[in-house]
């Protein structure tokens, strides 16, 4: 983020001076050693002093692009029209990147009492071809539920799937969220920031309100009249993956446009000892963003994105019945392991496409009051292919087509007395259909769901205090059609009506410049989802028979969060979040312990049931800055889930983990031939994941795997060529090639996790 103001002084020809200061956008602290250049003549440049001040003189009138680069920040480019001596007041978003976090002490935009954390654009770029969930895992309290590396879904504070809302550019991602082996269909390279809101403050978003919200946000197009863009290329040694991402954008008074495309391909991944055959993936995505101001008061935006992927599933992890499963557990190396690398993706595999179209119009009634209308349509097409007889492997075993239509009207105002109001009406309609091509009875039924919601949120600021209060009501209509099992299948129709009520309140107190305290409490109810009610049949992805319960009732949750963030003498920064969530009638898939005999042998039976449960935990983050160059960051996450009705552990709770990151940042450029290497950054990361000791042996096929430790490092630097800014990075994951298995990765039943991976990337900005 960057802002500046121009103040004209005196006009002169080719003797113009540009002076100014650069400060931290969030804390207001002057930033030293910020490199500034004119892109048009890279030799003309300077660096800020201790007071953040700079001066560039001897300029002719004209159009320039000023490049600002600073360690830990993403390089900024600002367009200037210079006609006279100019004073600039520039800001860079430094501290939030240092902390990898948006909510920082002293932040002016701490407009909420819930804690949120974000991942910067630079971090996203340096993650190369990683999927959304794997990138988010870098945040404290965020984990991933996986089926191999490519299929991953985010877990926040122990909740995932139906309980988490993912907003792609403000629109709730709609797809087959229920499946533990279904990744969110979003290209992280389209986003400029990824943000996780932890807690129950996010009542303005549709979807389940009892879990956290993940925001995937492309940035607004800057008022930059020239064509600009970036090209990223990345390579990964594990899987011989290659990827390229191109972004172009331009602002014209008529319309501002941005286009973003990504292509990725990777082959079989490898553990320290063997290939994971058939774990390749390929992806092609494109996004188009158009923005137009019809007047001073009326802005409209159109956004279209298309996501298309094909993901291989480990061949040796495709298991039929209990006998096969038990045999697979005993093996060191999975069945079908071949000592040969391949890019081929055969069955079992998933082929998923997702299209999103959003139209949004904002109308300002007054500068501090606006109305907003949004329409969005989504099409999600998921096909999963199994190993089948007689050439049927080319016919999907699961084929679902889902259309979602969303309409929203919102009103937002800043009233006098520092009262803020946000209110809105939303209507969402889902049309889910099993394509009959599969020749298999569907696991989840065809259905319509109509969701109508209304919310009102209020904030009040008083001195150092912020109060927040909100409520939301949703009316859900479900119309599902299922086929009964038995010798003479019957068609059963269900019509359900649910009322979901949610409320939250919170308080934030800015105790001093160095300490910020917040408390938030929220109540929410969630109606049972269609899969929880009516699933029926063999779920190949989990080697079990899943049965819904049409008599499930809504679940209720009360979540409280308490956060304490602060800093001591600009040396030690800390963030802590404590949370406690209590569920009534928590819906979960219970392993009944029974097996069902079929012609394919015996299968374990899982049933959707309800219980009372608690989840509580702690996210801690601290950073100590030893000097300008050296800093140490520690992140610790603790979580515990309990079924309090039966006094047993909840299944699939993430293991506790501790990460230490030693960073070296060299703010001064180092000459490299004719040019300079800037912003040299080295990070050494060590992540320790504890064993999950909180489990019940009869809930799972195998006990949780052992604790493990992963070492990684990253080296990054920038270099300026005439008009092109380049950024290079190399990172090594699992440097010691450690053999390990992760509790929340389903592939752990059959195979080790990934061995060493070297990632290389280069990024050109122009």
């Amino acid at each position, binding site marked *: 983020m960057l802002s500046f103001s121009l103040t004209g002084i005196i006009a002169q020809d080719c003797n113009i001076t540009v002076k100014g200061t650069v400060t931290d956008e969030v804390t207001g602290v002057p930033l030293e050693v910020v490199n500034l250049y004119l892109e048009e003549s890279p030799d003309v440049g300077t660096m800020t002093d201790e007071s953040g001040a700079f001066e560039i003189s001897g300029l002719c009138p004209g159009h320039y692009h000023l490049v600002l680069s600073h360690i830990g920040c993403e390089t900024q480019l600002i367009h200037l029209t210079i006609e006279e001596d100019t004073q600039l007041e520039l800001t860079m978003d430094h501290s939030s990147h240092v902390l990898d976090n948006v909510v920082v002490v002293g932040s002016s935009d701490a407009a909420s009492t819930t804690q949120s954390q974000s991942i910067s654009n630079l971090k996203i770029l340096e993650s190369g071809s990683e999927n959304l969930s794997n990138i988010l895992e870098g945040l404290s309290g965020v984990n991933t539920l996986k089926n191999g590396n490519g299929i991953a879904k985010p877990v926040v504070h122990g909740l995932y799937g139906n309980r988490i809302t993912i907003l792609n550019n403000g629109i709730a991602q709609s797809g087959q969220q229920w499946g533990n082996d279904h990744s969110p269909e979003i290209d992280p390279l389209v986003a400029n920031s990824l943000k996780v809101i932890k807690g129950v403050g996010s009542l303005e978003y549709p979807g389940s309100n009892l879990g956290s919200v993940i925001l995937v946000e492309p940035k607004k197009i800057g008022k930059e009249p020239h064509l600009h863009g970036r090209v990223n290329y990345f390579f990964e040694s594990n899987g011989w993956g290659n990827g390229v991402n191109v972004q172009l954008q331009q602002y014209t008074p008529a319309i501002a446009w941005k286009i973003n495309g990504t292509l990725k391909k990777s082959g079989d991944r490898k553990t320290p000892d063997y290939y994971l055959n058939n774990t390749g993936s390929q992806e092609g995505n494109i996004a188009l963003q158009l923005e137009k101001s*019809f*007047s001073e008061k009326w802005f409209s935006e159109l956004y279209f994105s298309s996501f298309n992927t094909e993901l291989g599933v480990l061949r040796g992890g*495709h*298991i*039929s*019945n209990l*006998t*096969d499963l038990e045999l697979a557990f005993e093996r060191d190396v999975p*069945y*079908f392991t071949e000592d040969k690398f391949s890019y081929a993706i055969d069955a079992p595999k998933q082929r998923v496409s997702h299209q999103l179209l959003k*139209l949004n*119009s904002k*109308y300002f009634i007054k500068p501090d009051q606006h109305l907003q*209308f949004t*329409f969005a*349509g989504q099409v999600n097409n998921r096909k999963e292919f199994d*190993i089948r*007889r*007689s050439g*049927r492997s080319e016919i999907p075993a699961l084929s679902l087509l889902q259309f979602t*239509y969303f*309409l929203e009207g919102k009103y937002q105002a800043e009233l006098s007395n520092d009262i803020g109001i946000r209110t809105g009406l939303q*209507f969402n*309609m889902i049309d889910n*259909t*099993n394509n*009959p091509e599969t*020749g*298999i*009875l*569907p696991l989840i*039924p*065809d*259905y*319509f769901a*109509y969701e109508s919601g209304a919310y009102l949120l209020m904030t009040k600021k008083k001195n150092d205090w912020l109060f927040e209060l909100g409520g939301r009501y949703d009316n859900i209509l479900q*119309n*599902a*059609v*299922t*086929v009964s*099992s*038995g*010798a003479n*299948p019957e*068609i059963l*129709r269900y019509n359900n009506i649910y009322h979901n009520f949610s409320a939250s309140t919170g308080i934030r107190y800015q105790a001093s410049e160095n300490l910020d305290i917040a408390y938030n409490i929220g109540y929410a109810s969630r109606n049972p989802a269609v899969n929880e009610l009516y699933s*029926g*049949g*063999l779920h190949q992805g989990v080697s079990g*028979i899943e*049965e819904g319960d049409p008599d499930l009732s809504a679940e209720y949750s009360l979540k409280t969060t308490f956060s304490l963030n602060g800093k001591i003498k600009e040396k030690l920064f800390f963030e802590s979040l404590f949370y406690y969530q209590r569920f009534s009638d928590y819906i979960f898939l219970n392993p009944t312990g029974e097996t*069902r*005999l*079929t*012609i*394919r*042998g*015996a*299968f374990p039976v899982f049933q959707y049931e309800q219980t009372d449960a608690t989840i509580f935990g702690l996210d801690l983050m601290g950073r100590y800055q030893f000097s300008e160059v050296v800093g140490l960051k520690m992140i610790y996450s603790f979580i515990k889930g309990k079924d309090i009705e039966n006094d047993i552990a909840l299944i699939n709770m993430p293991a506790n983990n501790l990460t230490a990151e030693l960073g070296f940042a060299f703010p001064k450029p180092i000459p490299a031939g004719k040019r300079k290497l800037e912003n040299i950054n080295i990070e050494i990361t060590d992540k320790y994941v504890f064993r999950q000791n909180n489990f019940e042996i009869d809930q799972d096929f195998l006990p949780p795997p052992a604790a493990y430790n992963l070492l990684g490092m990253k080296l990054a630097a920038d270099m300026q060529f005439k008009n092109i800014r380049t950024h290079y990075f190399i990172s090594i994951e699992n440097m010691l090639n450690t053999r390990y298995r992760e509790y929340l990765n389903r592939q752990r039943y059959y195979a080790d996790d990934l061995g060493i991976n070297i990632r290389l990337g280069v990024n050109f900005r122009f």
Partner: protein
Amino acid sequence: MKHSRLLPLLLLALLFTVTSCEKDDPDVNEEELITTLTYTLSPVGGGADVVMTFRDLDGDGGDAPVITGGTLDAGVQYNGAITLLNEAESPAENITEEVEGEDLEHQFFYETSVAGLTVAYADMDADGNPTGLATTVSATTVGSGTLKVTLRHEPNKSGEGVADGNITNAGGETDIEVTFDVNVE
């Protein structure tokens, strides 16, 4: 308000949502189902066949399968033949042919707890490996126990002992796994 241009669009979207309120009836056919496995043992010297069946007409869920075991005579040799059917279809679909057609990718295994009961392969695929649709069965001593019949898809047919009917190194996926009670008199 200047939103008149958006209005038709919103109305169009609404229209989409109210056009149909009930989902169409879903397809209830299951194509790939195997409902019935029959293992017929014909005495070599003539006599009544011993027929063992596993029948689950409604597939994975619903009613429990009906399993019929068999009684063999000690000292008699039998020719065994497997038949697979999908009896949910009418007329019943013969799945045996599907397995025959993909014999390189399939193999039956026979495991028994009855002492003296042996099952030997009596057929071959193009590579000279057994498929196990045809077998030779003999029982030497009186006793009782179980016979487990397993069909593996994509097994490692060249694995150690696999061609002799040892399932340990076969790998692959189980398409069928049924267990019969067997008496030898």
